[in-house]
């Protein structure tokens, strides 16, 4: 599936705005990203959010990724 | 370090305390008398969360020395209710959601009461200017002003009612207790 990569996270995937990767859960997606792109690991530590079909997930890494879902990687942000 | 001995009346009760000459009334109330309703928001008289009345006059207790209330009467938010009966302002603040975090609420209640005590039928503008010395960061003041307006109406209605008769003193109750 296509995963869009935004903001500083692009630097970890050689500037690509989108990458092709298969995963059934957020946890699997992030694990595979680190395996394929080692530069991703420090950014993961700093905080990443995954948006599935418009819903932002900051912590729930067990969340399943349905087939055909739109997946976007975003920096993990907070409110006030 | 020699303390000043002060005799005063707080919320109707006689109170004595010893404080430093330079100690402000706010610190005396909070640290010596145990009344923490008045708060310190700034210490410089700019926010009004320390509002109390001294001899009926609205003051910032962070700008009054403890020693200055010798022989005077002090009223704080803790003295607003009559036992379990809340003052109409207190009731209306809850009813109208005029508080969110509530830190400014004691100061606003004291200031609003001071206003209604001298001007029972204030206009919206008069309310806003009378309360301009009290900062609120949560509400935008909208529901506070509405609560004061509602309390003013309530108090005006109360003022037209006949005064409650004083409770009769009877011996009947006492004898009933003896025989029971």
């Amino acid at each position, binding site marked *: 599936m296509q995963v869009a990569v935004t903001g500083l996270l692009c630097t970890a995937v050689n500037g690509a705005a989108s990458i092709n990767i298969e995963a059934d859960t957020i946890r699997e997606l992030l694990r595979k990203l680190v395996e394929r792109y080692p530069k991703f690991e420090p950014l993961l530590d700093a905080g990443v959010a995954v948006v599935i079909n418009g819903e932002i997930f900051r912590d729930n890494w067990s969340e399943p990724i349905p087939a055909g879902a739109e997946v976007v990687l975003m920096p993990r942000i907070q409110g006030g | 370090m020699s303390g000043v001995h002060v005799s005063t009346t707080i919320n109707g009760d006689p109170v004595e305390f010893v404080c430093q000459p330079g100690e402000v009334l706010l610190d005396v109330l909070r640290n010596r008398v145990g009344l923490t309703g008045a708060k310190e928001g700034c*210490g410089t008289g700019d926010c009004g969360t320390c509002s109390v009345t001294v001899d009926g006059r609205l003051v910032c207790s962070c700008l009054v020395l403890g020693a200055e209330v010798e022989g005077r009467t002090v009223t704080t938010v803790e003295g607003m209710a009559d036992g379990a009966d809340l003052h109409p302002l207190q009731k209306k603040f809850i009813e109208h959601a005029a508080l969110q975090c509530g830190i400014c609420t004691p100061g606003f209640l004291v200031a609003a009461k001071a206003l209604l005590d001298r001007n029972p039928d204030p206009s919206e503008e008069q309310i806003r200017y009378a309360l301009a010395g009290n900062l609120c960061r949560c509400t*935008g003041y909208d529901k506070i002003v509405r609560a004061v307006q509602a309390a003013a109406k309530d108090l005006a209605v109360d003022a037209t009612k006949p005064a409650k008769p004083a409770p009769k003193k009877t011996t009947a109750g006492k004898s009933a207790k003896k025989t029971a």
Partner: protein
Amino acid sequence: MTHNPSFTNQTFKVIGTRVPRPDGLDKVTGRARYGADASAPGQLVGMILRSPHAHAEIKNIDTSKADKIPGVKAIITSADLPDKVNGRRDMLDTLENCMARGRVLYDGHAIAAVAAIDADTAKKALKAIKVDYKILPHVTDVDEAMKDGAPIVQQWVRTAGGDANKATNVSQVSQFGHGNIEEGFAEADVIIERSYKTEQTHQGYIEPHACLASVGPDGNGELWVTTQGHYTFRTQCAQLLGMDIAKLKVTSSEIGGGFGGKTHVWMEPVALALSRKANRPVKLVMTREEVFRATGPTCSTSMDVKIGAKKDGRITAALAVLRYQDGAFPGIWGMLGGMTAWACYDLPNVKAIAYDVLVNRPKVAAYRAPSAPMAAFAVESTMDLVAQAINMDPVDFRLLNAAKEGTRASYGPTYGPIGIRATLEAVKNHPQMKAKLGPNQGRGMACGFWFNFGGQTCSTVNIGTDGTVNVSVGTVDVGGSRASLSLIAAEELGVPYETVKCTVSDTTALGHNDTTEGSRGTFSSGMAIIFAARNAVAELRARAAKTWDIPVEEVEWKDGVAYPMGDQHHNLKPLSLKDIAAKSPRTGGPIAGHNETVADGAGVSFASHICDVEVDPETGATRILRYAVVQDAGKAIHPDYVEGQFQGAAAQGIGWALNEEYVYGKDGRLQNAGFLDYRIPVCSDLPFIDTTILEIPNPGHPYGIRGVGETSIVPPLAAIGNAVSNAVGVRMNHVPMSPPRILKAIKAQRAAG
């Protein structure tokens, strides 16, 4: 039991009613206890010595004289706060911000702290501490800090992903967007390009930071503190002090305002370290001056915005370049501004480039929809200019370009059902749009967006033997959420609101709960309570089944009563929650429901505001005549408190737009660290604030709740800028639009003829 968080369209019995809040009585009688209202036997007064320099090396700290003062029980410096952060940079930054380590980075940075028997002794001790500084050049302006040759705030900082050898004040540069903006601009009939600046503001909570810390030699500690997140404070303090998390009990006092500024520790680790050294409780309360100088204000910014549009109103390209200062430590606030800048619109070609920059100012913290108001000021002001240039009504222009379900957001994902169009339609039809305007009066409107978040949340619902209910939550109540959460429990269990008591528990009673920020309090704890209550209902049904000796599948729960299902049980009397609770000691013991959840899927929210102003052309002073807020809440659990959030956020935005700013001198010192000269709105500055709550359900929450607390601080800056422009014909590009600035602009325009 797993629960489904998806929205189920249901009719409610108590949700949406305006009930009195449970903590109301304590708050109107002065009984409620905030951070500074607790005391402990034997407590000491803590006080902090702060740097009078914006940037300096600390050559030496001599505490010998102070040590000898009778009544001084402990003095600490960074030597008493060793690095236990295991290489975590963000925690080391927090530690260094709590107490300077060899160098001071901003005016007000903590150098040392004392604990003494009373305030006078503590003050004497601070005066007796001798510090040798080597003063270094400083920089406090975001654009100045980016120039070559600017003083470097932190020598180790490198631009992330950039030159690894170049010391810099730019900690990161991030980009968001899609499409091709060069092509987009080439297609445009009209291009407007402007630059903007906003000054630094503070959350301005009326209650200063305060805590009572007590640490024993056995490693056990207690902390009473005003905070937006006592669990987060526990984790941070435990780590910084090398304590076990479970052994540090943190109790959240009532909080006198936070707005993001109390999501971060500022002096709590110092209080704990003092207590540990003195082996006595230490009460540490910040003065108002300390709050301004040494906690977490928001960013000051410098921004460039360019919008291209066709004559028919369709935007063809949009570009924002944002420069945000994060204070003396690396931050991500600029990036967050870049993500929010264009979020309201459906744009084929869009880009936001955001710089995060260090300066010698306090460490920036979140402030209600952090980073969004500044970017919105720049974008929404420019939107009005484009609308003017093509002769289109500003609301219609926004409606034409507004995002909708299926729009690709400028920050990446595709939107589900969202409310921006609905808020714009409501603004278009709002009675305020018809109010007559006189001389020097003008009307402006603007839109705003905010993300809203979920997070880790735990809740327990305990049913007493008399049928009354205790609900324990871990999200601090900043604005009245205990009322809403009690309503939710009452709705789920089918019991009267008055029988439910909601308490914010200390850290020993529940698992970790994230801070109350990101508008998540009612959303997250609401979800956890729904699930906990449903678990309790399952147990109630089981007890009824046991009592009747029938299978639990034949028991249904409706409006607080268990009913046996099926004709064969017609002889069995229904059992109310009260009945079952009374029997609970003999049917299995106490009845409770519990839930740990990571609430995610918080919906984004939008707001549109209308503002009418009158500007005095002789003084430049602006008066707000009328103000209206329209915002999508998903579902308003307690409408009074939703309205309160709209009004409070708008008031903060109005203060930010018109008066509030940090003023730094050439010496790099904060000039206006008090409420007299840092001027927040007072009662006489504002009119009644009209509110309209729209309810477009959030598909990710059982009741459709969206976060509401933050979004309405986003539109006011531009709504007022647009109103001022329409009132007196000057386009303000520098916030706050204080009287001197407006007067200067009016005079310049007159001079230009």
